[in-house]
């Protein structure tokens, strides 16, 4: 599938099917709590290959790497800073072993978890250098595209997109932020609207823009706002609702059917890539696959 460049398909359609959650899948396989999920790349890469195979089998055309927190700030919390390049390399290789050329590999780039100065303590140039390191490592390992995701601060999202474009100029960058519905419309917790995100992420060099890690009910509305404010393809990856605890285990309430029922609305709103975030599983991806009319 990588034979056709990702960007051409994104622009030409039909809508691309992404994968689902990785953390949810890893924790179901006994990942210890509190440790960096990226440590799995070094110590148990076979788990990543297993999960990638499940998503491929469910119909995913894009499979994400387990590198959401593989930036110097987050890895540093766990003493893994020096392992950034090896983590990215192992993460891409593990997915490649499962998908071969049958799916595009999307190198995940999440937020640093630290507020940028002047609000917080992180120097923007330091953040940018970290994102560049991560993007370069993912590209060198063979990722087909990069996804800057779960961003709430537009300045940080722009830094990540610019750093990725510079460090890995051959790779398209999908940039998505996390919005919530308020009485005055959709905003990230930092106060960013889809309209503002659309314009500035497009200017930063993103190949596609949109939303992830949010309530599924908000996604079509957010997509329409992006549509109105930029010419780029739109990507959405909602959560499977907010988790509750049942007999000691966490349960995400949204069923694959409920998630799939939103697909027509998303397509109508112009979405070109749909996948899942927290709590979604291969079953959710399979339901999305059917809703996209891919049933054989």
């Amino acid at each position, binding site marked *: 599938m990588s034979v056709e460049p990702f960007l051409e398909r994104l622009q030409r359609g039909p809508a691309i099917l992404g994968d689902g959650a990785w*953390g*949810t899948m890893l*924790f179901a396989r006994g*990942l*210890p*709590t*509190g*440790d960096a999920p990226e440590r799995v790349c070094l110590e148990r890469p076979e788990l990543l290959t297993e999960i990638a195979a499940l998503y491929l089998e469910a119909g995913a055309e894009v499979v994400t790497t387990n590198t959401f927190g593989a930036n110097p700030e987050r890895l540093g*919390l766990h003493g893994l800073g020096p392992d950034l390049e090896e983590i990215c390399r192992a993460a891409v290789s593990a997915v490649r072993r499962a998908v071969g050329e049958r799916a595009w590999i999307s190198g995940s780039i999440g937020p640093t*978890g630290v*507020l940028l100065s002047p*609000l917080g303590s992180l120097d923007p140039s330091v953040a940018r250098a970290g994102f560049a390191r991560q993007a370069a490592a993912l590209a060198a390992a063979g990722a087909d595209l990069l996804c800057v995701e779960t961003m*709430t601060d537009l300045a940080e999202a722009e830094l990540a997109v610019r750093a990725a474009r510079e460090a890995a100029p051959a790779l398209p960058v999908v940039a998505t932020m996390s919005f*919530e519905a*308020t*009485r*005055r419309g959709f*905003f*990230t*917790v*930092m*106060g960013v609207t889809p309209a503002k995100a659309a314009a500035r992420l497009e200017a930063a060099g993103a190949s596609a823009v949109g939303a992830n890690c949010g309530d599924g009910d908000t996604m079509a509305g957010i997509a329409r706002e992006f549509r109105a404010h930029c010419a780029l393809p739109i990507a959405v990856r909602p959560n499977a609702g*907010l*988790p*509750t*605890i*049942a007999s*000691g285990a*966490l349960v995400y309430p949204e069923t694959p059917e409920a998630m799939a029922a939103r697909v027509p609305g998303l397509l109508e709103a112009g979405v070109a890539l749909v996948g899942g975030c*927290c*709590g979604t599983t291969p079953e959710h991806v399979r339901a999305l696959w059917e809703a996209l009319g891919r049933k054989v």
Partner: protein
Amino acid sequence: MDLLNQLAEDLRLGEDDAVRAGTQAALAAGVAPGEILREGLLAGMAVVGEEFGRREIFLPDVLLAARAMQAGMEILKPHLASDGAPPAGRVVLGTVQGDLHDIGKNLVGILLRGAGWEVIDLGTDVPAARFLEAAESSGARVIGLSALLTTTMPRMAEVVALLRERGLAGRVKVVVGGAPVTQAFADEIGADGWGFDAESAVRSVKTLMESV
């Protein structure tokens, strides 16, 4: 009174210099330090909390206001001791064991301090037993637990269970919050309160303090 209204408004807008000057002016005018705290700084911070709760303002505005609050407090603090203005109460706060996220927890701390509480912040990756020790040694009646990872949420249940085991349930209340934490989850583990966001966490603490 105009002085204090202006102080509250300057704090709401995050104007450090104006808050510093306004606090000094109120002191010079002979306003009681406790009144400056309550009617000026805390009144402004309360509006900030409410507006953030309704998402009429956002995280950057809250952080700027908190910074202005601190600027005012630096000037006010030496005068407060003699005035004897007591803190609203004491709260032990931390992110549960296995979880290193602290942006949300810090925000709750800022709003609690802003609302007059003394906050004992235990940081991140805090074992259940340490929450209890801190509550017992400080006499705090409320423990606030934060988690961002869905996988560390069960650690919140451990704190509640340990309080029961040690016979402290009811005397020390537990408020839980964090992105994945819901009211249903709080009920399930037997927590006393839940914060949808930082502002509602503070309201929850306030309600609980009135009941203990």
